[in-house]
């Protein structure tokens, strides 16, 4: 039975739910099954989507936003027909092209030409149509000179360009795109945006998942916010983008506490690190152009001469935006005994554009090759808020002057 949807509805999602069965230990061999026959029942159900309902109209640019693990990519994969839903139904009008996990499914052992044709067929063209469109794809991707190269020799940027070009050239009615613009150079990103706008103006529907609130505000007709598998908000993209930021602030972004991102010999540990506002209160949200401080507390486990404590701030687009260390305060920090605690404080005015950032604190020796005692990757997340999403990556203190130089006509006349 078809849903009671208007003729303009292109994607109809009706109370879709999806759970993943996560075994505590993933059993992937018969040997393990034979050796531990009773382990098979230990699993957890992870609810990825719960009763999600929405409709996307023909010609809409629809954004899906949410934090990591919120279920937005799962939703996209259900719509794309990659995952089976547990409950609910999904309806589509017209042919769909998917661009998921930065690609359309290329084979690294084949040339660009073979890959484009095979993938165009997979996405719904006939082999003849695929061959006819090949030139358009390769021209769009600007990879003509590399067309006979195997894809394993491509850089990741070239790979994404080719995949994106293939997807848009199959002339689908619905484009389902997961995080397309996270890679590729700036000029290609701009080209992608422009192409997507042009495709939408032809009446095609675009569903896309992103973390980039600037593109939600600038590109989307409507957007939807997902949190813990549930739809929290749908509608005006500006409002959804704001809710997304608030959500990050309210819950606090989950810190990266995983030990696998930890490096060092363990002679000292980073006990704590945090951002503080102008009043010295801990915070996970700082304001652009506002005052702020960063703090790192380290405990030493053995006698160390001149330890160096440092931190690096990274962003979504740039791994290292800003680096500093205790060497800025003192070349030689002194001698510390096991059990001593030291603190590094850095005070600064926030120059970063609104977005998400993180701090990676470290502690190392000052001697020799600066070997690390401890380093926590992306340990403290922070959100920078501000009124302008289209600001540059950093706001540099600057002075601008403007005025008339004189007239070129007057000079000639003289």
């Amino acid at each position: 039975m078809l849903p009671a949807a208007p003729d303009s509805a292109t994607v109809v999602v009706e109370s879709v739910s999806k759970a993943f069965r996560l075994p505590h230990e993933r059993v992937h061999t018969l040997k393990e099954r034979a050796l531990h026959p009773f382990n098979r029942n230990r699993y957890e159900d992870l609810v990825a989507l719960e009763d999600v309902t929405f409709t996307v109209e023909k010609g809409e640019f629809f954004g899906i936003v949410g934090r990591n693990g919120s279920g937005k990519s799962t939703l996209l994969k259900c719509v794309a027909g990659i995952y089976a839903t547990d409950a609910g139904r999904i309806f589509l009008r017209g042919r769909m092209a998917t661009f998921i996990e930065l690609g359309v499914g290329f084979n690294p052992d084949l040339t660009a030409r073979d890959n484009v044709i095979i993938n165009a067929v997979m996405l719904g063209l006939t082999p003849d149509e695929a061959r006819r469109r090949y030139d358009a794809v390769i021209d769009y991707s600007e990879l003509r000179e590399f067309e006979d190269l195997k894809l394993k020799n491509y850089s990741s940027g070239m790979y994404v360009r080719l995949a994106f070009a293939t997807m848009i050239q199959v002339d689908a009615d619905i484009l389902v795109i997961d995080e397309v613009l996270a890679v590729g150079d700036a000029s290609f990103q701009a080209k992608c945006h422009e192409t997507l706008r042009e495709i939408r103006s032809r009446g095609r529907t675009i569903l896309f998942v992103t973390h980039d609130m600037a593109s939600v505000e600038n590109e989307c007709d409507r957007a939807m916010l997902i949190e813990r598998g549930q739809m929290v908000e749908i509608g005006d993209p500006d409002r959804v983008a704001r809710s997304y930021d608030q959500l990050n602030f309210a819950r606090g972004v989950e810190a990266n506490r995983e030990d696998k991102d930890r490096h060092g010999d363990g002679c000292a540990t980073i006990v704590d690190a945090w951002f503080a506002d102008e009043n010295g209160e801990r915070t996970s949200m700082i304001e652009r152009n506002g005052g702020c401080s960063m703090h790192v507390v380290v405990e030493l486990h053995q006698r160390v001469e001149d330890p160096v404590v440092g931190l690096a701030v990274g962003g979504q687009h740039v791994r290292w935006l800003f680096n500093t260390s205790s060497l800025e305060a003192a070349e030689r920090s002194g001698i510390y005994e096991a059990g001593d605690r030291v603190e590094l404080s850095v005070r600064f005015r926030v120059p970063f554009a609104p977005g998400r950032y993180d701090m990676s604190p470290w502690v190392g020796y000052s001697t020799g090759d600066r070997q690390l005692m401890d380093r926590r990757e992306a340990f403290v997340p922070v959100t920078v808020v501000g009124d302008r999403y289209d600001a540059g990556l950093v706001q540099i203190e600057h002075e601008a002057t403007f005025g008339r130089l004189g007239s070129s006509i007057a000079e000639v006349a003289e």
Partner: protein
Amino acid sequence: MSAHGAAASREHALVEMTGPSATAGSWPRFYHITRALAVMDFKVRFYDSALGYLWTLMKPLLSFGVLYVVFSVIVRIGEGERFYASSLISGIVLFFFFGDATNKGVTCVLDNETLVRKIHFPRMVIPLSVVLTNGFFLLLNFIAVFVFFWIDGVEGVRLTWLELPILLVLLFLFTVGVTMILSVLYVVARDLKPIWEVVSQALFYLTPVLFPISLVAEQDERIAHVVMCNPLAAIIQQARHALIDPEQPSAAAAIGGAPWLLIPFGILFGTFFFGLWLFNRMAPRIAEEL
């Protein structure tokens, strides 16, 4: 770009997305994708080798050379057997098709992980395309088989040669069935690959490829009957009877009467339909298990 003008006005009905499955979508699309994947498989295998196809021919020929020397000069199973060389090469080519396709097929779903994770398409085309590629080699290798017939002095074309296409279709169905089962189970049981290598090796020696079935029958009729329950044995034996020498026992004769043929037939179709059912049942969850 002229297609866009026409496309902009096209109308589509709202269609339910039923999620990933073994056979989703239209049959033309199923056909196009199967062919595209088979061509891809073919290209990946031969892209770098100038001699390409020759190597797939070399494998059965070299095996033939070794086995022929061992079993007709050293062990002397084939001594006195009429057309032993022809029997051996036809058995090798038929069995190698099954062995190569299934061993390649075990990992085929995982080999195409990037496609499975990113595109909605009928999952069944993956094992099917692997078997098709090998089927293509099988047909080419049969050219070599006929050359052997000619050298060996096998009597010219006979009406019974018409049985060959039927036998090949049966062999194809059985191979597809086994490949479907293996490829989908491999997703959850990754040690199936080495296991299957051993099993298919054992199967090679249990199938009358090297030895004439009459040799087994001389020792014990009943063992010969059991050996013939294997669909591969029945197909290979019947192929020899029909193609090489009418004096070789037909599959029916070797198993002890036509009604007994129901057993290999049953196993063959049982495997095929079980494979179909299993693949169909597991296809929707493949992407999650990868």
